[in-house]
């Protein structure tokens, strides 16, 4: 009864309700603008809400978080420029839909699916948080490494066209992620003795360059062509559509919660993994993936919103952040005089239920703001290209600077923008580059941790892998997915099916 009261705090207090709503609304726009990130918004809010009570401060932050994760999909669909890394997969099928004038449908489906994903994430947080965090703690360095390899195998499904070019792009991404001083030993890597390379290359700068600037440069080819008129009559998807994708969305939400709950991995990886999963399990999509398949929207969007609930799981139960945003929230709780840690659930269960309540509220506001105001958003794409292109370029520059207040990042962003332009022309997929950069640290750090823990002994390393059920399962998944992408699989499959037909 007590807990229910705390859960309902946010619903009964108009001020808190307003703050969650305001936060969610602002979050959608923060998320939609590449370079403005939720992480940034929340850390600014710490100073801004310093003198407030803890409840209003947290309400506002949660609103921004929920709205921001969702907002990244907007620009991904409308402009092919993901507003946040977790929306990269959304662009793959969302933008082709917008090119056909179906942006309204795409946004509608995205919103409803984000809502469903968000709820599944919150549900798991509310009902099974201690259980999930125990599971997340079981991940050893070698398991994170296997997870990273699993992630790298996604290159296959992100490279339409040539797989070799995809592999090249993925490897390039991992190399980009290694630039700068190695965080573990401080050795310089790919810095060529330039001081400005020591800080490494911000992956947000790479993303903004490759997707933002290179897209803008490509659009220059047809400045004079009229923008596609968007049909925005049918925004809310029919019940049948939702029902059809419900099984998939439950699966991808599970991926989202799990990846989100693991410290060190977040919504970006979750969304890409979910996209890959959707591609695997969808037998006959209405349209091909990469050509505007609805499933290609459903999977990443449910997963990245489910990851929000997931990220709160280790934060609330152990005081360990599930991602960058929850890390800042831990700081915020600390500043407001709470002691975020494993005792929080025991000392202050009201905080836990209050946060769950805020998340539920923010999720509902997200649905509301997501389904309204689409007209305004679609107007963006219908803007004359002569204004839109320079604006995208300007926003890319400001956004790249804002990530770390660094002019160097702006130069990188511009460099990768031009490079990405050539890559697109010559059929090199860009998704794997970003995937590589995201996974670079996860792979590199954990490989080294794992092998150092075994004193460089590969025998012990594999003994460790096979000694743990979790590692074994991950290894089998890696092998299976790898084999499924090689010709051996197709050959084996055709043999088996051929036999069946004979009998």
């Amino acid at each position, binding site marked *: 009864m007590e807990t229910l009261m705390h859960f309902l705090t946010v619903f009964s207090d108009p001020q808190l309700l307003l703050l969650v709503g305001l936060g969610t609304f602002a979050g959608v726009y923060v998320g939609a603008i590449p370079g403005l990130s939720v992480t940034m918004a929340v850390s600014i809010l710490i100073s801004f809400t*310093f003198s407030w009570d803890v409840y209003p401060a947290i309400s506002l932050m949660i609103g921004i978080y929920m709205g921001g994760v969702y907002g990244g999909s907007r620009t991904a669909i409308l402009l092919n420029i993901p507003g946040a890394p977790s929306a990269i997969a959304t662009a793959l099928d969302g933008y082709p839909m917008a090119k056909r004038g179906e942006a309204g449908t795409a946004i509608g489906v995205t919103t409803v699916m984000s809502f469903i994903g968000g709820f599944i994430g919150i549900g798991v947080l509310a009902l099974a948080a201690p259980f999930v965090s125990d599971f997340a703690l079981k991940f050893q360095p070698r398991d994170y490494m296997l997870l990273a390899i699993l992630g790298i195998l996604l290159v296959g499904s992100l490279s339409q066209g040539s797989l070799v070019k995809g592999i090249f792009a993925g490897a390039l991404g991992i190399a980009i992620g290694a630039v*700068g001083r190695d965080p573990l030993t401080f050795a310089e890597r790919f810095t060529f003795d330039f001081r400005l390379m020591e800080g490494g290359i911000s992956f947000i700068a790479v993303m903004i360059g490759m997707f933002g600037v290179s897209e803008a440069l490509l659009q220059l080819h047809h400045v004079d062509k009229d923008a596609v008129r968007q049909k925005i009559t049918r925004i809310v998807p029919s019940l049948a559509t939702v029902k059809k994708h419900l099984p998939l969305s439950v699966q991808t939400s599970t991926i989202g919660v799990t990846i989100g709950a693991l*410290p060190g991995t977040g919504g970006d990886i979750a969304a890409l993994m979910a996209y890959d999963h959707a591609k695997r399990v969808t037998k006959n999509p209405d349209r091909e993936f990469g050509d505007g398949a609805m499933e290609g929207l459903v999977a990443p969007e449910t997963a990245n919103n489910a990851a929000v609930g997931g990220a709160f799981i280790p934060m609330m139960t152990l005081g*360990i*952040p599930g991602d960058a945003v929850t*890390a800042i929230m831990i700081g915020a709780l600390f500043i407001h005089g709470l002691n975020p840690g494993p*005792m929080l659930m025991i000392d202050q269960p009201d905080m836990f239920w209050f946060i769950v309540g805020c998340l539920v509220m923010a999720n509902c506001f997200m649905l509301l703001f997501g389904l309204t105001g689409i007209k305004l958003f679609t107007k963006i794409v219908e803007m004359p290209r002569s204004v839109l292109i320079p604006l995208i370029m300007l926003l890319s520059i400001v956004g790249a600077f804002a990530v770390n207040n*660094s002019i160097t990042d702006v130069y990188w962003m511009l460099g990768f923008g031009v490079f990405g332009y050539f890559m697109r022309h010559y059929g090199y997929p860009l998704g794997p580059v970003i995937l590589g950069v995201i996974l670079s640290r996860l792979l590199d750090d954990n490989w080294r941790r794992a092998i*150092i823990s075994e004193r460089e002994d590969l025998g012990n390393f594999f003994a460790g892998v096979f000694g743990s059920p979790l590692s074994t399962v991950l290894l089998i998944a890696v092998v299976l997915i790898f084999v499924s992408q090689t010709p051996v699989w197709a050959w084996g499959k055709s043999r088996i099916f051929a036999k069946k037909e004979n009998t």
Partner: protein
Amino acid sequence: MKRYLIGAISALALTATTVAAEYPEKEIQGIIQWGAGGSTDTVMRSVTPHAEAALGGTVVMQNMTGAVGAIALNYVADAEADGYTVLMGAENPMLYKIMGLGDKDYGEFVPINILARGTPLLVANNDAPFNSYSEMIAYVKENPGTVRFGSTGPGGLPSVVTAMINAVEGELDVIAVPYDGDGPALTGLQGGAIDVMPAVLGAAIEGVRAGNMKALAVFDTAENDKLPGVEAVAEVNDGYNTYLPWGPFFGVFVPKGTPDDAVAKLSAAYAEGAKNPEFIELMEGRGFTLMGISGDEAEAFLSKWQQGTAWLLQDAGLTKASPEEFGIARPGE
């Protein structure tokens, strides 16, 4: 036209402020050396609003990460020394030179306020086969090369604490598993990826209180009242008194050459901010020792800290260049 307009407005702004042409006449940029949500970030974001009130100005805080904080340090060192760019950092720049990470340290800065010092704490996974510091030393000596220590790279707190243990107890054969911060390392500790982790008390205390990990010893001269019953290493082995008390610290700095007026005002403001009861409660709750020192006292603290730590690391063979090369004297010489 446009230029004229800007000129006119700025002239107006100037005349408006000449009435009170005193520092600060515009907002101050506070560069936080570490990422959002880290302990430096939290400490700075919680003291600065109080200091702002005392100063009567605005401090815009920004995180600038990369190259173990060297990017932020260089940025502020290269900025104009006018008191409008302030560095909010932790202890590690004092080791940049000997670690080959850069050619600048706090020697190029004037300390505005050294706010607080942390106490290192040795924590272990709950399943580790030892329950106290002495048992751990005995176990490691009996089972060389099996115990995994977490570390955060050369020059980080764990490397200094490990060097201290080696200096006092003799070389211990342990596996140092590198992490990129004490947060991830403590997570790894709870999951059993590492057995022992030297961490700052504030980062580990909640985990210890909840029984998710066990405290072996505090690295101090006496027991800490936050963790009664946990032995202090100096009480176990007298040899530690040479090095302790030691701990990471947080401070606010401006480049050398900043006008005295600005330094005085900033120092007064941060001294006032650090006295705020809310801030004190917050810091003590996390087990930090408040210092609130500035001026000569702070300079003396910095050079003593640097000498002790640099030579400890040098003797442990962890440095890239000898402290001697940079005129860092061996303590007691």
